[in-house]
């Protein structure tokens, strides 16, 4: 890792250079009362004040809807064509948070265990992530309890930390990050003395450990806790769609007469239709079983199977939930429970 200091006021000049040089730059942009990642054309569009966006950054590599291939029927024959990889632009994800960057590791684990998903891989490989360490947090944040932190650099190519009113620490983790620094190298001063990064970071207390949660939930399949916790769950897909690690998807057909395309689009295990058979039989018939699936998949099945947890503690699901299904609160109650 290489460390530099940059004058905070020069960041915009650097971003401007990045926008000029990279085909696509995604950054948090104010959108009504919320903030979302959008493609930006100038540094002024960026909302530097936002803590997190409503929807996570996963769309940068796993968009809500994308083409898998196109088909053309011609008489009895069918021709299939794939999108050229040139269609996936080199992308810089600007002003993401540590919890966004961390989310790509579980995503990659899902898309690359066993069969390799080359569409995801290509998008992910073309993605450079610039995170800004958090100096604020809210009551939904719990990254420190699941192994992350406001200044965690896992998954980031570059992390920026505002040290004071004038100076910003730049930590460059990867070659991709180096390339961005090289776009305007003069503004980066080598770090002359150690700085106390921790001091400026948000303080987020550790409430539990993910290993603890895993141990509890792995043996709690038949626990009444699921029904109790999920009672007020409405069964919408908000939590899954805003989550940085939820990767469940649907494959759909966009048909226009004799041509069309096969698509992949986001889906959510909270929807009752997710597992329902054509016959009407549903292996997960109630919201309690679907809520259990969500928690167990993230905290038991994924670590067991893929060696990675499906939660970065970003708190987006809790913020998005219409009925205040606060994940942190539920996890604390699970961590404190004794296998009911």
């Amino acid at each position, binding site marked *: 890792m290489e460390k530099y200091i940059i004058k905070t006021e020069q960041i915009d000049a650097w971003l401007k250079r990045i926008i000029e040089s990279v085909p*696509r730059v*995604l950054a948090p942009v104010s959108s009504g009362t919320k903030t979302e*990642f*959008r*493609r930006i054309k100038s540094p002024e569009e960026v909302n530097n004040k936002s803590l997190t966006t409503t929807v996570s950054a996963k*769309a*940068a590599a796993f*968009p*809500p*809807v*994308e*083409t898998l291939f196109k088909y053309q029927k011609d008489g009895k024959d069918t021709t299939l064509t794939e999108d050229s990889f040139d*269609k996936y*632009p080199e*992308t810089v994800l600007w002003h993401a948070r540590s919890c966004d960057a961390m989310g790509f590791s579980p995503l990659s684990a899902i898309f690359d265990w066993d069969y390799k998903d080359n569409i995801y891989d290509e998008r992910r490989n073309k993605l450079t992530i610039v995170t800004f360490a958090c100096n604020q947090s809210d009551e939904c944040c719990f990254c420190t309890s699941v192994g992350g932190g406001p200044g965690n650099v896992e998954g980031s190519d570059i992390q920026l930390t505002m040290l004071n009113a004038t100076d910003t620490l730049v930590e460059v983790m990867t070659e991709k990050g180096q390339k961005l620094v090289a776009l305007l190298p003069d503004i980066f001063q080598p770090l002359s003395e150690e700085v106390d990064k921790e001091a400026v970071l948000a303080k987020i207390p550790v409430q539990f450990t993910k290993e603890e949660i895993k141990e509890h939930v792995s043996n709690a399949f038949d626990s009444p806790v699921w029904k109790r916790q999920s009672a007020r769950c409405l069964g919408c897909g908000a939590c899954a769609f805003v989550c940085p690690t939820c990767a469940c998807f649907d494959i759909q057909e*966009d048909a226009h007469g004799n041509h069309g*395309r096969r*698509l992949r689009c986001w889906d959510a295990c909270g929807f009752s239709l997710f597992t329902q058979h054509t016959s009407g039989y549903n292996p997960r018939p109630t919201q309690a079983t679907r809520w259990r699936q969500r928690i167990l998949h993230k905290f038991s099945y994924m670590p067991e199977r893929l060696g990675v947890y499906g939660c970065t503690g970003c708190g987006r699901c809790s913020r998005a939930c219409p009925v205040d299904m606060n994940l942190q609160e539920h996890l604390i109650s699970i961590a404190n429970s004794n296998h009911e």
Partner: protein
Amino acid sequence: MEESNNNFEPRIIAFVCNWCTYAGADLTGTSRIKYATNVEIVRFPCTGRIDFMLLLKAFAGGADGIIVSGCHPNDCHYTSGNFHARRRWIVFRNILNFLGIDVQRIRFSWVSAAEGAKWADIVNDTVKEIRELGPYTEYKKVANYLDEEADSHE
């Protein structure tokens, strides 16, 4: 694709009921009344059976204008289908208008089985009007969402 509006041939989809307007359109033909060929007729048992989604699908599928036509009030073959339809269109047209969808492109009418000439007039009028409005490009554009530069949505 789009030339000047004068050369533009609008594509009109007509949703009509079997008992009045379809018979009326038939009469137009048998009476040898000439009218614009831009219209594609979809026949329904009754106007009450025309789902509003079909109108949206017609626009999404490339229609520039739509005609919805059935029996005059009190003439419905099924007594009240057209009354139900009328309510539906009152509500539907209102919401479309609020959303900024061009309701001028949807022509609602009553055409009885005896009104062959009226049918020809309605089609000709509609074609003329839609020709002036031009192709419904803005709707087609959102309908072809995925054809647009994919990443502009993100």
